[in-house]
């Protein structure tokens, strides 16, 4: 063996490139978000509103029928503080990744919370979407850069405990 440092590890690059095609309900969601609207879909049986819109209610197993637009405003149900950098996220460390129950939705939506200290984020906090500049909008959730505190009073835990 040479005098050089012995090999202790190897790097295996893992890469998967695939073409994804969204159709139907999912495509409508992407079409709407490219115009700055967030689309949900209501289940005809349990009346729950899924956001992003999905074609089938996972609980009832029936096709969802009614499109419902929800606002970019909601309540943080649960969250975590991220202290590890990620190259596709523009927020400064530490930032918060949260589940946000948009008003009128029955399932939380994933969003980053910025424009405040990570330590200020709490369950029940009201937030609103910060959209990317309109001219950059495309059929992607990246149109919503992040959420920021809206300044409204917190929501009591009892009001969203079913949606964790």
């Amino acid at each position, binding site marked *: *063996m*040479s005098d*050089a440092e*012995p*090999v*202790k*590890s*190897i*790097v*295996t*690059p*893992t*890469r*998967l*490139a*695939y*073409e*994804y*095609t*969204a*159709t*139907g309900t999912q*495509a*409508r969601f*992407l*079409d709407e978000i490219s115009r700055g609207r967030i689309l949900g879909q209501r289940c005809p049986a349990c009346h729950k509103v899924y956001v992003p819109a999905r074609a089938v209610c996972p609980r009832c197993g029936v096709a969802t029928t009614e499109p419902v637009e929800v606002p970019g405003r909601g309540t943080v149900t649960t969250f975590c503080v991220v202290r590890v950098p990620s190259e596709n996220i523009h927020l400064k460390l530490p930032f918060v990744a949260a589940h946000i129950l948009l008003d009128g939705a029955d399932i939380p939506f994933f969003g980053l919370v910025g424009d405040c200290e990570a330590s200020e984020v709490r369950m029940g906090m009201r937030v609103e979407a910060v959209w990317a500049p309109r001219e950059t909008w495309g*059929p992607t959730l990246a149109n919503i850069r992040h959420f920021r505190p809206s300044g409204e009073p917190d929501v009591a835990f009892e009001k969203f405990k079913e949606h964790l």
Partner: protein
Amino acid sequence: MDQTDGGVSFSAVHVVEYAYRRSVGSVLGRFFTELRDRKLIGTRTRAGRVLVPPCEYDPETGEAVDEFVNVGPAGVVTTWAWVHKPSAKHPLPRPFAWALVRLDGADTAMLHAVDAGSESRMRTGMRVQPRWREKTVGAIQDIECFEPEAAR
């Protein structure tokens, strides 16, 4: 965006990618370190079988194996499959064979690429030798591929 059947669809290429760093331990670590020096080694079990690539434990008995032996560098193709259209991830940009190569002095065979030029030159039992890269780093890719022994 496509408009088909009155509906809307979107297609995009999604890439999932990360570099996975794996610690190799003392035995494979030694194997990779020797590769960097353009040498091939295996481990010898108590029963005398030589395992290449080396194993930390005897697969027959589970006993720890710590005797290293030099093998190769040439060997014999024990089985192979021809790749007509290499993908971007393959080790060679032209048609080649994936082969199990039993290096001289070894009792097990190791998977590697054989650059034989054409499928008609491939034979089970053919002798092959490693083609080393100019710059070695301590990885299995330090062997660019194997090639028919008569090629040199």
